[in-house]
């Protein structure tokens, strides 16, 4: 079967790849491009571990065909820190112990950043519903929600 050529931008870098028509973005990221920070927990869009941004929209990369990335901009966890500076959410997740095993963490961070880019003053309920598509089995969500709320507060303080 002939492979399809796809041109994208991943974490700001122009990137080209060849893929099968049936391949998901997740498979290409992990298996072909070595970007294994994006995780597969279910392959059915229920756990959010594979959350990425596609042209600024939060998606489960297991549910997007790789060919759909043509001409689009992909952002993954590998692009979240800038140089040697962790993103405020990354720092706060460590500081607040908002991860235990860490497998869901890239997905939560991508989803949390997407929330705070839209709303830097979310209520606890808004945070909980925004993150309801991301499963974590270790933490009970408490410390994750607190970390996101705290970063939001810091962002508002900085913006003042």
């Amino acid at each position, binding site marked *: 079967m002939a492979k399809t050529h796809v041109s994208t931008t991943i974490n700001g870098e122009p990137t080209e790849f060849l893929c099968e028509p049936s391949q998901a973005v997740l498979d290409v990221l992990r298996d072909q491009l070595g970007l294994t920070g994006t995780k597969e*927990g279910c392959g059915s869009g229920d756990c959010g571990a594979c959350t990425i941004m596609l042209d600024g929209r939060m998606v489960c990369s297991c549910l997007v065909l790789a060919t759909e990335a043509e001409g689009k901009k992909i952002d993954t966890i590998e692009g979240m820190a800038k140089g040697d500076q962790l993103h405020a959410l990354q720092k706060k997740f460590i500081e607040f112990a908002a991860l235990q*095993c860490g497998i869901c963490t890239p997905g939560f961070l991508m989803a949390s950043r997407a929330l705070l880019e839209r709303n830097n003053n979310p209520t606890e309920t808004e945070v909980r519903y925004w993150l309801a598509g991301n499963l974590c089995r270790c933490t009970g969500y408490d410390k994750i929600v607190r970390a996101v709320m705290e970063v939001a507060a810091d962002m508002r303080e900085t913006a003042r």
Partner: protein
Amino acid sequence: MSKQKYKWVGTRPDRPDGADKVTGRARFGADFNMPGQLVGKVLRSPHAHAIIKSIDTSAAEKLPGVKAVVTAKDFPEQPNLIVPTGEMQVNLRDVTRNVMAREKALYESHPVAAVAATTDAIASAALALIKVEYQVLPHVIDVAEAMKEGAPLLHDNLITEGVKPVPTKPSNIAKRIDNVKGDTDAGFKQAEIVVERDYTTQPVHQGYIEPHACLASMAEDGQVQIWSTTQGHFQVRGFCSRLLNIETSQIRVTPTEIGGGFGGKTVVYLEPVAVMLSKKSGKPGKRVMSREEVVRASGPAPGGTVHVKIGARKDGTIVAAECTIALQAGAFPGSPVGPACWTSFACYDIPNIKVIGYDVVSNRPKVAAYRAPGAPISAWGVESTMDILAQELRMDPIDLRLKNAAKKGTKTSYGPVFDTIGFVETLEAAKNSEHYKSKPKPGMARGVAAGFWFNVGADSSAAAHVAEDGTVTIISGNPDIGGSRASLALMAAEELGVDYDKVRPVIADTSSIGFNFVTGGSRVTFATGLAVVNSVRDLVRECKVRAAKTWGVDPDGVIWENGCAKPAGSNVGEFEPLSLAQLAATAGKTGGPINGHNQLNAQGAGPGFGVHIVDLKVDRDTGIVEIGRYTALQDVGTAIHPSYVEGQMQGGAVQGIGWALNEEYIYSAKGKLDNAGFLDYRMPVASDLPMIETIIVEVPNPHHPYGVRGVGEVPIVPPLATVGNAIARATGVRMTDLPMSPPRLSAALDAATPRMAAE
């Protein structure tokens, strides 16, 4: 108190693996690859119970791109031999059959063959070409049904253990255990009130977000390398060695980062198959389970039935207690019925106890450990019954538990006498908590329950190496599943008297450190922590020898203080303190590298007790439960890194809430699982929950230098009854069957409404 006593223990520094895990650098099971690796896939039984009459792999083998096909014929037969694994015992004869079905397929998705191919698509195509001839047999899913006379038999040779006279006929009851203290018949005669109820629970999956995965390579010289996401890489090595007849030291297992386990990654599924595929194909191979495979074919916690009878005097003193527990083992014997029995009444000082347990096989995947294996099931029965007793006696539920609480000197039903424990302190902390003292919000009702876990010691090895610049590496062999690197480094820094960031913890593969038992049973911070502390002490002893050599004095004249060797007194001589960096710089002249080692079988694990409080609301129309407020309290001995202690308490509580309210396996009439995915197997999500408040109680374990007991297991024990007790108080309806899901709860409320109206 520990906060003043220690410089590092009890603080909350960043975890050593934090940056790796927030940037995607950390490599988990599916993130390892080797050049030329093949893709492995497993063919699974479509039937719940069937004789495998024949397997024809010839067409699959001929498919271009297929490099190996394996079936049970490739694996040597194993003896009927029980070996410990994780928190449970397994029989090698059964393990090899669970890894690859032999005579029969015993549950839907039981592996029957596996292939290694150059691509995923070819591997899938190859599976479709394997022809398996089955003779379908009647199956049994339910534990009570499986125990009945005439139920379909899974194993023709299974004779119930622990029964006299020895049964002459096989059955699905693998074992009966009896736990007796005192005389319950005499005890119940003294009772002024007796409460007796029957309960059921459904199996639940551990629900780790990372599916099982491994990469295996067997080289031409017979040396094997495995990268696996596991709670016990030494167990992976041991099982592969036994199941494949390979010398243990020829196998090197590197644990990857592990994306959750909760007990479910203490057994092997993929690794022996992956090694066999590598052997036959001559290529390395990778095998990753799909979520569906994880749910259908990896070990859930058992479901079961629990019968509880408690007798008390009117003042609340419990005089006798009985409990009968039957647990699903899955397709092979070996449910955690032992711990379910032993933990059942461990919270209470009761003179007369009788506990009977049954281990029952049925056509379900073989169960695996899940956080405090067995304990939540018996606690669901016992703690619900305690609540009914409190209601009937019109006693505060915490007061009833305080009146009967186990303390130092209490003899358990399973034998040991408790040393220093903190159940009373935990109950008192609950009673004095702001949560308990405040009234539930309007529309909310409150529930309380307790829980117990032994905590575990067992085998650990550790080493401490001083680098050339005086910084230290701590080497241990337990996968870090939730922050144990941080707790080990904190104890090492405390012991050494150096800063936390001067100590780097690493987790070594099976060939780079001595044997370590699994990460499980809440043992790592206790047992491996002890090995780390002892290895640091060994290192300090060596440092004193080196300082003594430098100064030309006797080693007994050297003390270790704040990370430096110092003369013990002015009589030894006047010497400037020698830091680790100074000792390391001259180590070549004083005897070579400075290292410490320790290996032990840790004794004296400190039992843990927890008390949970919930305020919740029940929507009578839909049966939906809204958790309004939740507090988990626990005696952890000493909280080494309080944030990760809180995290364990919060995570365990939420897993228990899922167990209580939603999680279950739904089987079709044909014995096939109907909800093998996260959409229909409903685990708690963020919007289901409030913050989970935690209160850490610290009654140090006298058998650990920093008083550690262990944390991870206890918090999943109380929530089931905590939630059920609150639902009973909210609605007047006592739920006895789990889960208390919206359809079940609304049906129970509907059924109860006419009766309640008549009252």
